[in-house]
Protein backbone atom coordinates (compact mmCIF):
# COMPACT_ATOMS: atom_id res chain seq x y z
CA UNK A 1 0.00 0.00 0.00
CA UNK A 2 1.25 3.49 -0.84
CA UNK A 3 1.89 5.94 1.98
CA UNK A 4 3.85 9.11 2.46
CA UNK A 5 7.45 8.44 3.51
CA UNK A 6 10.12 10.92 4.51
CA UNK A 7 13.78 10.28 3.80
CA UNK A 8 16.32 12.02 5.99
CA UNK A 9 19.94 11.99 4.86
CA UNK A 10 23.19 13.57 5.96
CA UNK A 11 25.36 14.22 2.94
CA UNK A 12 28.64 15.89 2.02
CA UNK A 13 27.90 19.43 0.90
CA UNK A 14 29.08 18.80 -2.69
CA UNK A 15 27.73 19.76 -6.10
CA UNK A 16 25.62 17.02 -7.73
CA UNK A 17 24.86 14.99 -4.57
CA UNK A 18 21.28 16.21 -4.60
CA UNK A 19 20.76 15.24 -8.25
CA UNK A 20 22.28 11.83 -7.64
CA UNK A 21 19.76 11.28 -4.83
CA UNK A 22 16.72 12.52 -6.72
CA UNK A 23 17.75 10.40 -9.74
CA UNK A 24 16.94 7.34 -7.60
CA UNK A 25 13.31 8.51 -7.46
CA UNK A 26 13.14 9.44 -11.15
CA UNK A 27 14.46 5.99 -12.13
CA UNK A 28 11.47 4.44 -10.35
CA UNK A 29 9.05 6.96 -11.85
CA UNK A 30 8.25 8.47 -8.47
CA UNK A 31 7.20 12.05 -7.92
CA UNK A 32 8.83 13.94 -5.07
CA UNK A 33 6.25 15.87 -3.05
CA UNK A 34 8.56 18.05 -1.01
CA UNK A 35 12.27 18.56 -0.70
CA UNK A 36 14.49 20.54 1.62
CA UNK A 37 18.28 20.85 1.75
CA UNK A 38 19.99 22.86 4.48
CA UNK A 39 23.29 23.21 6.30
CA UNK A 40 23.67 20.99 9.32
CA UNK A 41 25.41 21.89 12.55
CA UNK A 42 28.54 20.20 11.16
CA UNK A 43 30.65 22.10 8.62
CA UNK A 44 30.58 20.56 5.14
CA UNK A 45 27.56 18.39 5.92
CA UNK A 46 24.04 19.08 4.64
CA UNK A 47 20.69 17.67 5.70
CA UNK A 48 18.37 16.45 2.97
CA UNK A 49 14.65 15.82 3.58
CA UNK A 50 12.51 14.30 0.85
CA UNK A 51 8.92 13.21 1.02
CA UNK A 52 7.25 10.96 -1.48
CA UNK A 53 4.20 8.70 -1.69
CA UNK A 54 5.18 5.13 -2.46
CA UNK A 55 5.22 1.60 -1.05
CA UNK A 56 7.32 0.54 1.91
CA UNK A 57 9.22 -1.97 -0.27
CA UNK A 58 10.25 0.64 -2.81
CA UNK A 59 11.19 3.04 0.01
CA UNK A 60 13.44 0.41 1.58
CA UNK A 61 15.23 -0.15 -1.71
CA UNK A 62 15.59 3.57 -2.44
CA UNK A 63 17.09 4.15 0.98
CA UNK A 64 19.57 1.29 0.54
CA UNK A 65 20.59 2.66 -2.85
CA UNK A 66 20.99 6.17 -1.45
CA UNK A 67 23.00 4.69 1.41
CA UNK A 68 25.44 3.26 -1.16
CA UNK A 69 26.32 6.70 -2.51
CA UNK A 70 29.83 7.89 -1.84
CA UNK A 71 28.77 11.32 -0.54
CA UNK A 72 25.97 10.07 1.67
CA UNK A 73 27.02 9.78 5.31
CA UNK A 74 23.81 8.23 6.61
CA UNK A 75 20.21 7.89 5.59
CA UNK A 76 16.96 6.64 7.12
CA UNK A 77 13.27 6.92 6.41
CA UNK A 78 10.08 7.45 8.37
CA UNK A 79 6.43 7.07 7.63
CA UNK A 80 4.80 10.48 7.70
CA UNK A 81 2.61 11.12 10.73
CA UNK A 82 0.32 13.40 8.72
CA UNK A 83 -2.09 10.91 7.19
Amino acid at each position, binding site marked *: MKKEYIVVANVNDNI*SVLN*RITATYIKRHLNIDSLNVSNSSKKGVSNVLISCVTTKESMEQIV*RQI*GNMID*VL*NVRFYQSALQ
Partner: protein
Amino acid sequence: MIKGSQILIDSLIKEGVDTIFGYPGGSIMPLYDELYNYQEEINHVLVRHEQGAAHAAQGYARASGKPGVCMATAGPGATNLITGITDAYMDSTPIICITAQVPTDKLGSNFFQETDIINLTLSITKWSYQITSADEIAEVVAKAFHIASTGRPGPILLSITKNAQTTAIPFKNSKKYKFNIPSLRVNKLRSGDVNLAKGWIESAKKPLILAGQGVTIARGEEQLMEFAERSNIPVSVTLLGLSSFPTTHPLYVGFMGMHGNIASNFMIQEADLIIAAGMRFSDRVTGDLEKFAPNAKIIHIDIDRSEFNKTVKSHLHLHGDVAQVLAQLTPPKALPQHSEWLQFMEKNLQKERELVIDRLFDEKGSNKITMAQLVERATHMCGGDQIIVTDVGQHQMFCARYSKFTKGRSLISSGGLGTMGFGLPAAIGAKLGAPDRVVIAVLGDGGFQMTMQELGTIMQGKIDVKVVVVNNSYLGMVRQWQELFFDKRYSQTHMDNPDFTMLAKAYGIQSRRVEKIEELDGALKEMFENDSSYLLEVIVEKEENVFPMVPLGSSINNMIYQ
Protein backbone atom coordinates in the same frame (compact mmCIF):
# COMPACT_ATOMS: atom_id res chain seq x y z
CA MET B 1 55.39 24.91 -11.29
CA ILE B 2 53.54 21.97 -12.81
CA LYS B 3 50.60 22.06 -15.18
CA GLY B 4 47.35 20.31 -14.31
CA SER B 5 47.70 17.98 -17.27
CA GLN B 6 51.03 16.72 -15.95
CA ILE B 7 49.66 16.34 -12.42
CA LEU B 8 46.86 14.22 -13.87
CA ILE B 9 49.19 11.88 -15.75
CA ASP B 10 51.61 11.63 -12.82
CA SER B 11 48.66 10.77 -10.56
CA LEU B 12 47.54 8.02 -12.94
CA ILE B 13 51.06 6.56 -13.01
CA LYS B 14 51.10 6.68 -9.22
CA GLU B 15 48.00 4.47 -9.28
CA GLY B 16 49.82 1.93 -11.45
CA VAL B 17 48.24 2.89 -14.78
CA ASP B 18 50.26 1.78 -17.81
CA THR B 19 47.51 1.59 -20.44
CA ILE B 20 44.92 4.18 -21.49
CA PHE B 21 42.27 3.73 -24.17
CA GLY B 22 41.27 7.00 -25.70
CA TYR B 23 40.61 9.47 -28.47
CA PRO B 24 41.81 13.07 -28.65
CA GLY B 25 39.77 16.18 -29.42
CA GLY B 26 39.49 19.90 -28.78
CA SER B 27 39.16 20.33 -25.02
CA ILE B 28 41.42 17.42 -24.12
CA MET B 29 44.36 18.58 -26.27
CA PRO B 30 46.47 19.86 -23.34
CA LEU B 31 46.28 16.38 -21.79
CA TYR B 32 47.25 14.71 -25.07
CA ASP B 33 50.09 17.16 -25.46
CA GLU B 34 51.38 16.10 -22.05
CA LEU B 35 50.93 12.43 -22.92
CA TYR B 36 53.46 12.97 -25.71
CA ASN B 37 56.11 13.22 -22.98
CA TYR B 38 55.05 9.90 -21.43
CA GLN B 39 55.26 7.50 -24.34
CA GLU B 40 57.63 5.21 -22.43
CA GLU B 41 55.45 5.03 -19.31
CA ILE B 42 51.97 4.90 -20.80
CA ASN B 43 50.72 2.84 -23.70
CA HIS B 44 47.92 4.94 -25.14
CA VAL B 45 45.69 2.84 -27.38
CA LEU B 46 44.01 4.95 -30.03
CA VAL B 47 40.53 3.52 -30.56
CA ARG B 48 38.32 4.34 -33.52
CA HIS B 49 35.24 5.43 -31.56
CA GLU B 50 35.01 6.42 -27.90
CA GLN B 51 32.50 3.64 -27.16
CA GLY B 52 35.37 1.30 -28.01
CA ALA B 53 37.56 3.03 -25.43
CA ALA B 54 35.05 2.42 -22.64
CA HIS B 55 34.52 -1.25 -23.60
CA ALA B 56 38.27 -1.78 -23.97
CA ALA B 57 38.79 -0.34 -20.48
CA GLN B 58 36.15 -2.81 -19.25
CA GLY B 59 37.88 -5.73 -20.96
CA TYR B 60 41.19 -4.64 -19.46
CA ALA B 61 39.67 -4.43 -15.97
CA ARG B 62 37.86 -7.76 -16.21
CA ALA B 63 40.96 -9.61 -17.47
CA SER B 64 43.48 -8.01 -15.12
CA GLY B 65 41.45 -7.17 -12.01
CA LYS B 66 42.84 -3.61 -12.09
CA PRO B 67 40.75 -0.54 -12.97
CA GLY B 68 40.72 0.25 -16.69
CA VAL B 69 41.22 3.83 -17.85
CA CYS B 70 39.67 5.57 -20.83
CA MET B 71 39.83 9.13 -22.00
CA ALA B 72 37.76 11.30 -24.35
CA THR B 73 37.18 14.89 -25.19
CA ALA B 74 34.17 17.01 -24.16
CA GLY B 75 30.76 16.82 -25.83
CA PRO B 76 30.46 13.99 -28.35
CA GLY B 77 33.60 12.30 -27.06
CA ALA B 78 32.09 12.13 -23.60
CA THR B 79 28.59 11.12 -24.73
CA ASN B 80 30.06 8.31 -26.86
CA LEU B 81 31.40 6.76 -23.67
CA ILE B 82 27.96 6.48 -22.10
CA THR B 83 27.06 2.99 -23.35
CA GLY B 84 30.32 1.63 -21.96
CA ILE B 85 29.87 3.43 -18.65
CA THR B 86 26.36 2.00 -18.29
CA ASP B 87 27.63 -1.47 -19.13
CA ALA B 88 30.35 -1.14 -16.48
CA TYR B 89 27.75 0.06 -13.95
CA MET B 90 25.48 -2.93 -14.59
CA ASP B 91 28.36 -5.42 -14.48
CA SER B 92 30.29 -3.86 -11.56
CA THR B 93 33.43 -3.15 -13.58
CA PRO B 94 36.00 -0.69 -12.22
CA ILE B 95 36.78 1.86 -14.93
CA ILE B 96 37.97 5.45 -14.68
CA CYS B 97 36.61 7.63 -17.48
CA ILE B 98 38.37 10.94 -17.94
CA THR B 99 36.54 13.44 -20.10
CA ALA B 100 37.55 16.98 -20.88
CA GLN B 101 35.23 19.88 -20.28
CA VAL B 102 35.00 23.45 -21.60
CA PRO B 103 36.72 26.18 -19.51
CA THR B 104 35.14 26.76 -16.08
CA ASP B 105 34.05 30.33 -16.91
CA LYS B 106 32.17 29.07 -19.99
CA LEU B 107 30.21 26.31 -18.20
CA GLY B 108 26.49 26.47 -18.83
CA SER B 109 26.72 28.67 -21.93
CA ASN B 110 26.39 25.93 -24.58
CA PHE B 111 29.97 26.57 -25.53
CA PHE B 112 31.31 24.55 -28.49
CA GLN B 113 31.28 20.83 -27.52
CA GLU B 114 29.85 21.46 -24.06
CA THR B 115 27.76 18.66 -22.53
CA ASP B 116 26.71 18.41 -18.92
CA ILE B 117 28.38 15.00 -18.69
CA ILE B 118 28.23 14.93 -14.87
CA ASN B 119 24.45 15.17 -14.94
CA LEU B 120 24.16 12.78 -17.88
CA THR B 121 26.08 10.07 -16.06
CA LEU B 122 24.77 10.53 -12.50
CA SER B 123 22.63 7.43 -12.53
CA ILE B 124 25.24 5.20 -14.22
CA THR B 125 28.36 5.99 -12.21
CA LYS B 126 29.46 4.91 -8.77
CA TRP B 127 30.94 8.37 -8.33
CA SER B 128 31.72 11.36 -10.52
CA TYR B 129 33.48 14.66 -10.08
CA GLN B 130 34.08 17.77 -12.14
CA ILE B 131 37.62 19.08 -11.63
CA THR B 132 37.73 22.86 -12.17
CA SER B 133 41.16 23.73 -10.79
CA ALA B 134 44.59 22.10 -11.00
CA ASP B 135 45.08 21.82 -7.25
CA GLU B 136 42.19 19.34 -6.92
CA ILE B 137 43.56 16.83 -9.42
CA ALA B 138 45.91 14.63 -7.37
CA GLU B 139 43.46 13.96 -4.54
CA VAL B 140 40.49 13.42 -6.85
CA VAL B 141 42.36 10.87 -8.98
CA ALA B 142 43.49 8.97 -5.87
CA LYS B 143 39.91 9.01 -4.58
CA ALA B 144 38.56 7.81 -7.92
CA PHE B 145 40.80 4.74 -7.93
CA HIS B 146 39.99 4.02 -4.29
CA ILE B 147 36.25 4.17 -4.92
CA ALA B 148 36.34 2.27 -8.24
CA SER B 149 38.06 -0.72 -6.70
CA THR B 150 36.75 -0.77 -3.12
CA GLY B 151 33.57 -2.66 -2.21
CA ARG B 152 31.41 -3.37 -5.23
CA PRO B 153 33.44 -1.95 -8.13
CA GLY B 154 31.95 0.45 -10.64
CA PRO B 155 32.64 3.20 -13.15
CA ILE B 156 33.91 6.64 -12.13
CA LEU B 157 33.64 9.71 -14.33
CA LEU B 158 36.11 12.57 -13.94
CA SER B 159 35.33 15.65 -16.00
CA ILE B 160 38.27 18.05 -16.17
CA THR B 161 37.87 21.58 -17.44
CA LYS B 162 40.35 22.94 -19.96
CA ASN B 163 41.67 25.58 -17.56
CA ALA B 164 42.35 22.93 -14.89
CA GLN B 165 44.54 21.14 -17.44
CA THR B 166 46.51 24.20 -18.48
CA THR B 167 47.02 26.06 -15.17
CA ALA B 168 50.45 25.58 -13.60
CA ILE B 169 50.75 25.38 -9.82
CA PRO B 170 53.52 24.61 -7.33
CA PHE B 171 53.10 20.92 -6.63
CA LYS B 172 54.82 17.85 -5.17
CA ASN B 173 53.19 14.53 -5.94
CA SER B 174 54.39 12.69 -2.87
CA LYS B 175 51.37 12.92 -0.63
CA LYS B 176 49.62 9.68 0.33
CA TYR B 177 45.86 10.10 0.48
CA LYS B 178 43.63 8.11 2.81
CA PHE B 179 39.89 7.94 2.45
CA ASN B 180 37.30 6.83 4.93
CA ILE B 181 34.01 6.60 3.09
CA PRO B 182 31.01 5.49 5.19
CA SER B 183 29.17 3.70 2.36
CA LEU B 184 32.21 1.53 1.61
CA ARG B 185 32.65 0.31 5.17
CA VAL B 186 32.11 -3.39 5.88
CA ASN B 187 31.58 -4.57 9.44
CA LYS B 188 32.79 -7.89 10.76
CA LEU B 189 30.20 -10.65 10.47
CA ARG B 190 28.29 -11.48 13.63
CA SER B 191 29.46 -14.84 14.96
CA GLY B 192 25.82 -15.82 15.51
CA ASP B 193 25.12 -15.39 11.79
CA VAL B 194 28.22 -17.37 10.81
CA ASN B 195 27.28 -20.20 13.18
CA LEU B 196 23.71 -20.24 11.92
CA ALA B 197 24.94 -20.54 8.32
CA LYS B 198 27.39 -23.27 9.28
CA GLY B 199 24.61 -25.20 11.02
CA TRP B 200 22.39 -24.99 7.93
CA ILE B 201 25.27 -26.12 5.71
CA GLU B 202 25.98 -29.10 7.95
CA SER B 203 22.40 -30.28 8.13
CA ALA B 204 21.38 -29.62 4.50
CA LYS B 205 20.46 -32.60 2.37
CA LYS B 206 20.25 -30.79 -0.95
CA PRO B 207 22.58 -27.80 -0.79
CA LEU B 208 23.62 -25.78 -3.84
CA ILE B 209 26.10 -22.92 -4.34
CA LEU B 210 25.19 -20.19 -6.81
CA ALA B 211 28.41 -18.40 -7.72
CA GLY B 212 28.38 -14.98 -9.33
CA GLN B 213 30.95 -12.46 -10.49
CA GLY B 214 31.47 -11.38 -6.88
CA VAL B 215 33.69 -14.45 -6.51
CA THR B 216 35.94 -13.28 -9.36
CA ILE B 217 35.98 -9.67 -8.17
CA ALA B 218 37.00 -10.77 -4.67
CA ARG B 219 39.66 -13.05 -6.22
CA GLY B 220 37.88 -15.82 -4.33
CA GLU B 221 38.19 -18.70 -6.81
CA GLU B 222 40.34 -20.72 -4.40
CA GLN B 223 38.07 -20.05 -1.43
CA LEU B 224 35.06 -21.12 -3.50
CA MET B 225 36.79 -24.35 -4.51
CA GLU B 226 37.85 -25.05 -0.92
CA PHE B 227 34.37 -24.33 0.43
CA ALA B 228 32.61 -26.44 -2.24
CA GLU B 229 34.97 -29.41 -1.92
CA ARG B 230 35.09 -29.40 1.88
CA SER B 231 31.30 -29.06 2.19
CA ASN B 232 30.68 -31.33 -0.80
CA ILE B 233 28.24 -28.89 -2.37
CA PRO B 234 27.65 -28.66 -6.14
CA VAL B 235 28.29 -25.29 -7.82
CA SER B 236 26.10 -23.58 -10.36
CA VAL B 237 27.19 -20.26 -11.90
CA THR B 238 25.64 -17.10 -13.33
CA LEU B 239 26.73 -15.74 -16.72
CA LEU B 240 29.35 -13.48 -15.16
CA GLY B 241 30.22 -16.11 -12.57
CA LEU B 242 31.42 -18.43 -15.34
CA SER B 243 35.05 -19.52 -14.97
CA SER B 244 35.05 -18.74 -11.23
CA PHE B 245 34.82 -22.54 -10.86
CA PRO B 246 36.39 -24.97 -13.37
CA THR B 247 33.85 -26.40 -15.79
CA THR B 248 35.75 -29.70 -15.58
CA HIS B 249 35.22 -30.14 -11.82
CA PRO B 250 32.97 -33.05 -10.69
CA LEU B 251 30.94 -30.64 -8.50
CA TYR B 252 30.31 -28.25 -11.43
CA VAL B 253 26.63 -28.25 -12.32
CA GLY B 254 26.60 -25.61 -15.05
CA PHE B 255 25.20 -22.27 -15.96
CA MET B 256 21.80 -21.14 -14.61
CA GLY B 257 18.75 -19.23 -15.71
CA MET B 258 16.96 -18.49 -18.97
CA HIS B 259 19.35 -20.52 -21.14
CA GLY B 260 20.90 -22.38 -18.22
CA ASN B 261 21.67 -26.05 -17.89
CA ILE B 262 18.76 -28.29 -16.99
CA ALA B 263 20.57 -29.59 -13.91
CA SER B 264 21.21 -26.07 -12.56
CA ASN B 265 17.62 -24.94 -12.89
CA PHE B 266 16.10 -28.15 -11.57
CA MET B 267 18.51 -28.27 -8.64
CA ILE B 268 17.65 -24.67 -7.70
CA GLN B 269 13.97 -25.64 -7.61
CA GLU B 270 14.68 -28.79 -5.60
CA ALA B 271 17.39 -27.49 -3.21
CA ASP B 272 16.82 -27.22 0.54
CA LEU B 273 19.71 -24.76 0.95
CA ILE B 274 21.08 -22.18 -1.47
CA ILE B 275 24.33 -20.35 -0.79
CA ALA B 276 24.32 -17.40 -3.19
CA ALA B 277 27.85 -16.03 -3.37
CA GLY B 278 28.41 -12.64 -5.04
CA MET B 279 25.38 -12.75 -7.31
CA ARG B 280 22.32 -10.54 -7.52
CA PHE B 281 19.40 -12.80 -8.52
CA SER B 282 18.82 -11.01 -11.81
CA ASP B 283 15.55 -11.63 -13.63
CA ARG B 284 17.44 -13.74 -16.23
CA VAL B 285 18.45 -16.03 -13.37
CA THR B 286 15.24 -16.24 -11.35
CA GLY B 287 12.44 -16.36 -13.91
CA ASP B 288 9.15 -16.18 -12.01
CA LEU B 289 10.17 -14.82 -8.61
CA GLU B 290 7.14 -16.27 -6.84
CA LYS B 291 8.13 -19.77 -7.86
CA PHE B 292 11.92 -19.46 -7.47
CA ALA B 293 13.61 -22.02 -5.21
CA PRO B 294 10.44 -22.82 -3.26
CA ASN B 295 12.03 -25.35 -0.90
CA ALA B 296 15.27 -23.59 -0.09
CA LYS B 297 16.62 -21.61 2.80
CA ILE B 298 18.71 -18.92 1.14
CA ILE B 299 22.00 -17.54 2.44
CA HIS B 300 22.96 -14.46 0.43
CA ILE B 301 26.60 -13.31 0.54
CA ASP B 302 27.34 -9.94 -1.04
CA ILE B 303 29.51 -6.85 -0.60
CA ASP B 304 26.59 -4.61 -1.65
CA ARG B 305 23.89 -4.33 1.04
CA SER B 306 21.35 -2.97 -1.40
CA GLU B 307 21.24 -6.34 -3.17
CA PHE B 308 19.79 -8.11 -0.11
CA ASN B 309 16.07 -8.85 -0.48
CA LYS B 310 15.93 -6.74 -3.67
CA THR B 311 14.37 -9.53 -5.71
CA VAL B 312 14.72 -12.86 -3.92
CA LYS B 313 14.15 -12.72 -0.17
CA SER B 314 16.98 -14.40 1.71
CA HIS B 315 16.71 -16.13 5.09
CA LEU B 316 20.15 -14.93 6.11
CA HIS B 317 22.36 -12.33 4.51
CA LEU B 318 26.08 -12.08 5.12
CA HIS B 319 27.48 -8.68 4.15
CA GLY B 320 31.12 -8.83 3.20
CA ASP B 321 33.87 -9.79 0.82
CA VAL B 322 32.79 -13.06 -0.77
CA ALA B 323 36.24 -14.65 -0.54
CA GLN B 324 36.50 -13.89 3.17
CA VAL B 325 32.96 -15.00 3.97
CA LEU B 326 33.37 -18.28 2.10
CA ALA B 327 36.62 -18.91 3.98
CA GLN B 328 34.76 -18.34 7.26
CA LEU B 329 32.02 -20.77 6.28
CA THR B 330 34.40 -23.53 5.16
CA PRO B 331 34.14 -26.49 7.55
CA PRO B 332 37.44 -27.61 9.14
CA LYS B 333 36.81 -31.21 8.11
CA ALA B 334 35.11 -32.52 4.98
CA LEU B 335 31.35 -32.99 5.31
CA PRO B 336 29.80 -36.28 4.09
CA GLN B 337 28.71 -36.60 0.46
CA HIS B 338 25.08 -36.01 -0.41
CA SER B 339 24.94 -39.05 -2.67
CA GLU B 340 21.22 -38.90 -3.49
CA TRP B 341 21.56 -35.22 -4.37
CA LEU B 342 24.55 -35.91 -6.60
CA GLN B 343 22.55 -38.66 -8.29
CA PHE B 344 19.79 -36.13 -8.94
CA MET B 345 22.42 -33.87 -10.51
CA GLU B 346 23.80 -36.70 -12.67
CA LYS B 347 20.30 -37.69 -13.76
CA ASN B 348 19.65 -34.14 -14.97
CA LEU B 349 23.03 -33.78 -16.66
CA GLN B 350 22.20 -37.00 -18.52
CA LYS B 351 18.75 -35.64 -19.38
CA GLU B 352 20.39 -32.58 -20.96
CA ARG B 353 22.82 -34.71 -22.95
CA GLU B 354 19.91 -36.72 -24.36
CA LEU B 355 17.47 -33.87 -24.97
CA VAL B 356 19.79 -31.10 -26.09
CA ILE B 357 23.51 -31.69 -26.39
CA ASP B 358 23.81 -34.91 -28.41
CA ARG B 359 21.68 -33.42 -31.17
CA LEU B 360 23.97 -30.38 -31.47
CA PHE B 361 27.06 -32.50 -31.80
CA ASP B 362 25.60 -35.08 -34.15
CA GLU B 363 27.59 -34.82 -37.35
CA LYS B 364 25.79 -37.54 -39.30
CA GLY B 365 23.00 -35.49 -40.80
CA SER B 366 24.54 -32.29 -42.06
CA ASN B 367 28.03 -30.92 -42.58
CA LYS B 368 26.96 -27.44 -41.47
CA ILE B 369 28.67 -26.02 -38.39
CA THR B 370 26.66 -25.35 -35.22
CA MET B 371 27.66 -22.58 -32.80
CA ALA B 372 27.92 -25.17 -30.02
CA GLN B 373 30.49 -27.20 -31.98
CA LEU B 374 32.50 -24.11 -32.78
CA VAL B 375 32.73 -22.93 -29.18
CA GLU B 376 33.38 -26.39 -27.76
CA ARG B 377 36.18 -27.13 -30.21
CA ALA B 378 37.87 -23.77 -29.91
CA THR B 379 38.02 -23.89 -26.10
CA HIS B 380 39.08 -27.56 -25.98
CA MET B 381 41.88 -26.78 -28.42
CA CYS B 382 43.12 -24.18 -25.91
CA GLY B 383 42.75 -26.59 -22.99
CA GLY B 384 40.28 -24.24 -21.27
CA ASP B 385 43.08 -21.78 -20.61
CA GLN B 386 41.88 -19.07 -23.01
CA ILE B 387 39.86 -15.92 -22.41
CA ILE B 388 36.58 -15.89 -24.30
CA VAL B 389 35.12 -12.44 -24.93
CA THR B 390 31.64 -12.49 -26.35
CA ASP B 391 29.23 -10.08 -27.87
CA VAL B 392 25.52 -10.39 -27.12
CA GLY B 393 23.04 -12.88 -28.49
CA GLN B 394 22.83 -16.56 -29.36
CA HIS B 395 26.59 -17.05 -29.72
CA GLN B 396 26.97 -15.57 -26.21
CA MET B 397 24.67 -18.20 -24.75
CA PHE B 398 26.45 -20.97 -26.67
CA CYS B 399 29.76 -19.66 -25.29
CA ALA B 400 28.31 -19.75 -21.78
CA ARG B 401 26.98 -23.29 -22.22
CA TYR B 402 29.73 -25.06 -24.14
CA SER B 403 33.04 -23.35 -23.31
CA LYS B 404 35.62 -25.17 -21.27
CA PHE B 405 37.15 -23.02 -18.52
CA THR B 406 39.97 -24.14 -16.25
CA LYS B 407 41.17 -20.74 -15.08
CA GLY B 408 39.43 -17.69 -13.52
CA ARG B 409 38.71 -14.44 -15.41
CA SER B 410 38.12 -16.37 -18.61
CA LEU B 411 34.69 -15.21 -19.73
CA ILE B 412 34.20 -11.53 -20.48
CA SER B 413 30.69 -10.72 -21.57
CA SER B 414 28.11 -7.97 -21.28
CA GLY B 415 25.60 -9.40 -18.81
CA GLY B 416 23.36 -6.79 -17.20
CA LEU B 417 23.14 -4.35 -20.08
CA GLY B 418 23.40 -6.83 -22.96
CA THR B 419 25.36 -4.43 -25.13
CA MET B 420 25.78 -5.48 -28.74
CA GLY B 421 29.11 -4.20 -29.98
CA PHE B 422 30.81 -4.91 -26.65
CA GLY B 423 32.83 -7.90 -27.83
CA LEU B 424 35.53 -6.62 -30.18
CA PRO B 425 36.72 -3.60 -28.15
CA ALA B 426 36.46 -5.56 -24.87
CA ALA B 427 38.69 -8.25 -26.40
CA ILE B 428 41.29 -5.60 -27.26
CA GLY B 429 41.27 -4.48 -23.63
CA ALA B 430 41.38 -8.07 -22.36
CA LYS B 431 44.48 -8.86 -24.45
CA LEU B 432 46.29 -5.82 -23.06
CA GLY B 433 45.14 -6.68 -19.54
CA ALA B 434 46.31 -10.29 -19.83
CA PRO B 435 48.99 -10.28 -22.56
CA ASP B 436 50.13 -13.84 -21.85
CA ARG B 437 46.74 -15.41 -22.47
CA VAL B 438 45.02 -16.35 -25.73
CA VAL B 439 42.05 -14.01 -26.24
CA ILE B 440 39.24 -15.10 -28.53
CA ALA B 441 36.50 -12.64 -29.42
CA VAL B 442 33.41 -14.62 -30.39
CA LEU B 443 31.03 -12.22 -32.13
CA GLY B 444 27.78 -12.46 -34.02
CA ASP B 445 27.53 -10.81 -37.43
CA GLY B 446 25.19 -8.17 -35.97
CA GLY B 447 27.24 -7.14 -32.93
CA PHE B 448 30.51 -7.22 -34.87
CA GLN B 449 29.17 -4.61 -37.27
CA MET B 450 28.31 -2.25 -34.40
CA THR B 451 31.98 -1.73 -33.45
CA MET B 452 33.93 -3.31 -36.30
CA GLN B 453 35.88 -0.11 -36.83
CA GLU B 454 38.03 -1.29 -33.92
CA LEU B 455 39.80 -3.60 -36.39
CA GLY B 456 41.77 -0.42 -37.04
CA THR B 457 42.82 -0.33 -33.37
CA ILE B 458 43.95 -3.97 -33.64
CA MET B 459 45.91 -3.17 -36.78
CA GLN B 460 47.66 -0.08 -35.44
CA GLY B 461 48.39 -1.53 -32.00
CA LYS B 462 49.37 -4.96 -33.40
CA ILE B 463 47.09 -6.52 -30.80
CA ASP B 464 46.88 -10.30 -30.99
CA VAL B 465 43.14 -10.91 -30.77
CA LYS B 466 41.61 -13.97 -32.41
CA VAL B 467 38.32 -12.74 -33.86
CA VAL B 468 35.69 -15.36 -34.64
CA VAL B 469 32.66 -13.96 -36.44
CA VAL B 470 29.77 -16.37 -36.16
CA ASN B 471 27.72 -15.52 -39.21
CA ASN B 472 24.15 -16.67 -39.72
CA SER B 473 23.02 -13.52 -41.54
CA TYR B 474 20.47 -12.95 -38.81
CA LEU B 475 20.14 -11.13 -35.54
CA GLY B 476 19.83 -14.64 -34.24
CA MET B 477 18.47 -14.17 -30.74
CA VAL B 478 15.74 -11.78 -31.85
CA ARG B 479 14.94 -14.12 -34.74
CA GLN B 480 14.65 -17.02 -32.27
CA TRP B 481 12.13 -15.03 -30.20
CA GLN B 482 10.25 -14.13 -33.36
CA GLU B 483 10.13 -17.81 -34.28
CA LEU B 484 8.93 -18.91 -30.85
CA PHE B 485 6.76 -16.04 -29.65
CA PHE B 486 5.91 -13.85 -32.68
CA ASP B 487 4.60 -16.40 -35.14
CA LYS B 488 7.79 -16.52 -37.25
CA ARG B 489 7.32 -12.94 -38.37
CA TYR B 490 11.01 -12.14 -38.96
CA SER B 491 10.67 -8.39 -38.75
CA GLN B 492 14.00 -6.69 -39.60
CA THR B 493 16.26 -9.47 -38.36
CA HIS B 494 17.76 -10.67 -41.65
CA MET B 495 21.06 -9.06 -42.62
CA ASP B 496 22.86 -8.85 -45.94
CA ASN B 497 26.47 -8.84 -44.86
CA PRO B 498 29.68 -7.74 -46.51
CA ASP B 499 32.57 -10.14 -47.06
CA PHE B 500 34.11 -10.05 -43.59
CA THR B 501 37.33 -11.74 -44.71
CA MET B 502 37.92 -8.98 -47.27
CA LEU B 503 37.24 -6.40 -44.58
CA ALA B 504 39.92 -8.02 -42.39
CA LYS B 505 42.31 -8.02 -45.34
CA ALA B 506 41.74 -4.29 -45.80
CA TYR B 507 43.07 -3.90 -42.27
CA GLY B 508 46.01 -6.23 -42.92
CA ILE B 509 44.54 -8.92 -40.68
CA GLN B 510 44.85 -12.51 -41.86
CA SER B 511 41.47 -14.12 -42.38
CA ARG B 512 39.61 -17.20 -43.53
CA ARG B 513 36.02 -18.30 -44.01
CA VAL B 514 34.72 -21.80 -43.26
CA GLU B 515 31.32 -23.35 -43.88
CA LYS B 516 31.76 -27.10 -43.41
CA ILE B 517 32.34 -28.97 -40.20
CA GLU B 518 35.32 -30.86 -41.66
CA GLU B 519 37.14 -27.56 -42.25
CA LEU B 520 36.62 -26.25 -38.73
CA ASP B 521 39.47 -27.88 -36.79
CA GLY B 522 42.04 -26.96 -39.45
CA ALA B 523 40.89 -23.36 -39.52
CA LEU B 524 40.93 -23.05 -35.71
CA LYS B 525 44.42 -24.56 -35.63
CA GLU B 526 45.61 -22.12 -38.26
CA MET B 527 44.15 -19.24 -36.25
CA PHE B 528 45.82 -20.29 -32.99
CA GLU B 529 49.16 -20.99 -34.65
CA ASN B 530 49.18 -17.60 -36.31
CA ASP B 531 51.25 -15.33 -34.05
CA SER B 532 49.23 -12.18 -34.65
CA SER B 533 45.59 -11.17 -34.91
CA TYR B 534 43.32 -13.27 -37.11
CA LEU B 535 39.72 -13.14 -38.25
CA LEU B 536 37.86 -16.38 -38.78
CA GLU B 537 34.42 -16.10 -40.30
CA VAL B 538 32.31 -19.15 -39.55
CA ILE B 539 29.15 -19.57 -41.57
CA VAL B 540 26.74 -21.39 -39.27
CA GLU B 541 23.26 -22.86 -39.54
CA LYS B 542 20.97 -19.95 -40.35
CA GLU B 543 18.13 -20.84 -38.02
CA GLU B 544 19.79 -22.53 -35.08
CA ASN B 545 18.12 -21.93 -31.71
CA VAL B 546 19.56 -21.84 -28.21
CA PHE B 547 17.89 -24.49 -26.08
CA PRO B 548 16.88 -25.13 -23.43
CA MET B 549 15.03 -21.92 -22.91
CA VAL B 550 12.81 -20.60 -20.15
CA PRO B 551 10.06 -18.37 -21.58
CA LEU B 552 10.08 -14.84 -20.12
CA GLY B 553 8.40 -14.76 -16.71
CA SER B 554 8.10 -18.54 -16.35
CA SER B 555 9.39 -20.64 -13.51
CA ILE B 556 12.97 -21.71 -14.30
CA ASN B 557 12.14 -25.41 -14.42
CA ASN B 558 9.59 -24.78 -17.15
CA MET B 559 12.07 -25.28 -19.97
CA ILE B 560 11.61 -25.62 -23.71
CA TYR B 561 14.03 -28.27 -24.92
CA GLN B 562 13.72 -28.01 -28.69
